[in-house]
């Protein structure tokens, strides 16, 4: 009978980590990894695999790890997943592969720590013979170098297509580099995995915003097929009075300054970021936790997360919530900001809020928050970060005239293949709305397969 619990992963102490952007979760040692690998029952029917959107042969890579054949284990991982060191860190495993794991179904027992094992193997940095010569005389353009685009590009390159990725920023990774903070996903790790994609022969063209700096039509005409993976990049604001006061930011701005532009190293890096004493972060998703933990690390004295529903409805991963609590973030449930108050210099000084109570379930199945009359109060704050979600970028509507959108402003793509139109495919957040890294990768993978058969059929 296997051990009941996962081998614990060492973490940086909360007191130490609130002052640094060092990675919080420290990873397994080899002994720990092998001990955890032994908990896997090597099930013949592999239920865990069906929980993984990219279909990694999970028992296979675990078995190779157990036999100390890291190279083979790496090969199995990279067969299905071009970015395993990233997924091992940021996948919501508890809702995916690990949810389906047989060991986790045994009462009182935790599933195999598949994500941690994946991270361990990927972190051993085994370099594989990779360069594939373009062998198919077809060119594919991939727009956006986030997880969806990187996956589609890598898979198509592996199949011998010549692939060019167009990316708006100066570096690849999408949300992995501008959204998810360094302390959860070191940028060095992302750079290494991107290097792997480059080693497959994928060409990158940075600083190109398709639909703006190059018309989409031109790309469509020049390439045999196009994959669009441009993410859901526009910030949503609550739009309450006073929203344009100084020191009110979208989480997208705050995190982009800090992560992509490295403002946490200001003034070594030129981009500044505001640091204030009493900060409110609105929302309760993963992005909220990232923003709250970031501003705390930058030196805010008090960080208050304000959410209109209760703890029970909080969409953030429980693990990230716990990390936030450990780091001293203060939570205010059932509280809704309704107006910002500012001083004569337009700096925000307070937030008028109302208390909420929960009523009947709404469309999302969660109980609808209702304002309690007469419950207004003012919360004194000198900075606010709104982290209430992203929508598809405005450029999309103007810049991709040929592409069909649905009623949410996302691209209307076939679910199984990502097909939008002849030779045009799309996947990731731009199709589904904000989702997860691994779902975006799964979509990239499915589209790569569909593009391959389309191009071979077309001849």
């Amino acid at each position, binding site marked *: 009978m296997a051990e009941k619990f996962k081998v614990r992963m060492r973490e940086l102490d909360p007191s130490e980590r609130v002052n640094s952007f060092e990675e919080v979760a420290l990873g397994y040692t080899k002994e720990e990894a092998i001990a955890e690998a032994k908990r896997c029952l090597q099930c013949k029917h592999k239920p865990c695999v069906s929980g993984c959107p990219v279909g990694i042969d999970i028992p296979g890579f675990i078995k190779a790890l157990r036999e100390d054949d890291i190279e083979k284990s790496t090969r199995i991982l990279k067969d299905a997943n071009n970015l395993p060191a990233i997924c091992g860190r940021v996948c919501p495993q508890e809702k995916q592969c690990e949810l389906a794991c047989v060991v986790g179904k045994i009462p009182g027992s935790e599933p195999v720590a598949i994500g941690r094992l994946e991270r361990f193997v990927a972190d051993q940095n085994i370099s594989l013979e990779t360069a594939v010569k373009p062998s198919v005389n077809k060119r594919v353009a991939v727009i956006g170098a986030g997880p969806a685009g990187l996956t589609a590009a890598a898979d198509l390159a592996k199949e011998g297509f010549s692939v060019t990725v167009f990316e*708006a920023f100066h570096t690849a990774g999408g949300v992995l580099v501008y959204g998810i903070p360094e302390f959860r996903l070191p940028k060095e790790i992302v750079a290494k995995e991107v290097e792997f994609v480059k080693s497959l022969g994928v060409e990158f063209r*940075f600083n190109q*915003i398709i639909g703006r*700096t190059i018309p989409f039509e031109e790309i469509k005409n020049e390439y045999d097929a196009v994959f669009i993976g441009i993410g859901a990049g526009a910030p949503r604001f609550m739009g309450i009075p006073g929203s344009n006061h100084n020191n009110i*930011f979208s989480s997208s701005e705050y995190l982009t300054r800090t992560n992509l532009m490295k403002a946490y190293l200001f003034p070594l890096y030129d981009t500044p970021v505001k640091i204030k004493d009493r900060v409110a972060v609105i929302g309760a998703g993963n992005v909220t936790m990232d923003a709250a933990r970031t501003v705390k690390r930058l030196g805010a004295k008090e960080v208050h997360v304000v959410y209109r529903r209760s703890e029970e409805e909080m969409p953030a991963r429980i693990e990230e919530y716990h990390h936030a609590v450990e780091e001293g973030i203060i939570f205010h449930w059932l509280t809704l900001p309704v107006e910002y108050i500012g001083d004569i210099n337009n700096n925000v000084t307070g937030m008028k809020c109302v208390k909420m109570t929960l009523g009947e379930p709404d469309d999302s199945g969660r109980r609808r928050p209702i304002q309690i009359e007469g419950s207004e109060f003012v919360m004194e704050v000198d900075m606010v970060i709104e982290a209430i979600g992203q929508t598809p970028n405005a450029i999309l509507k103007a810049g991709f005239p040929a592409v069909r959108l649905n009623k949410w402003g996302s691209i209307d793509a076939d679910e199984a293949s990502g097909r939008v139109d002849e030779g045009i495919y799309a996947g990731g957040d731009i199709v589904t709305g904000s989702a997860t890294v691994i779902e975006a990768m799964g979509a990239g993978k499915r589209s790569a397969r569909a593009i391959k058969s389309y191009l071979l059929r077309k001849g």
Partner: protein
Amino acid sequence: MYAVLSKKRIAPDTYDIWLSHPDIYRYAKPGQFLIIRIDEFGERIPLTIASAEKDRVRVIVKAVGKSTYKLCAMNEGESVSDIVGPLGNPSEIEKLGTVCVVGGGVGIAPLFPVARALKAAGNEVIGILGAANKDHLIMVDEFRPFLDRLYLSTDDGSAGIKGTVTNPLKEVIADYSPVTIWAIGPMVMMKFVSLLASQNDIPCWVSLNPIMVDGTGMCGACRAEVGGEMKFACVHGPEFDGRLVNWDELIKRQYQYREEERVALEKYVRELGEKDG
């Protein structure tokens, strides 16, 4: 990498710089801008595209802080890591009749492609160019071929009419009844030109230059209230009808990072000193 092809000082703090770029010239239109990142440590610097020709693009830069000082200190042959562009919506250029273009300080530079395009579209173009003093009045000779009438103004009277651009503008409105005004310059100037336009019921395009980060609609740093709605200058603009802009709020947003900007500049100056000493 994008090389500095040439650099010329055209006013005490202002430089006329051509950079190599393979394809901006194919798409750039008047009113659009680009973003430069000088190197790995650099911030993203939005600058208007002053002109673009095959394989090169021109910017006119006023050194106001760390990043623009550094850019203006670069020499021919050196290069910047990144240039993204063209960004923003082009100006709406069409034949309207008599129009007036008003440029203030370094805002004269972004006004240039607009004035040229308005003339080419068959308009009668009246120009008003203003600056603090004679030395800061840039590009006057370049404008001349595209203007039917030209007024100059300086705060100290060292060239043209003494005072701000609104003085000649009042005259132009009274004498020529322009059907549309374009104004680019410091926010305070654009605010007062817009006010005048509003009093005379004349549409007035201004080019907003709020603090930007990505320049692609992804962060909301550049937001401004226009006609009571929240607009992102980088993707919904940068040109808006100035009569609808909430100027007081926008002007205050412009100074949000003053303290950090001071720290950055002081560090830069100190490092320069160490290098030279």
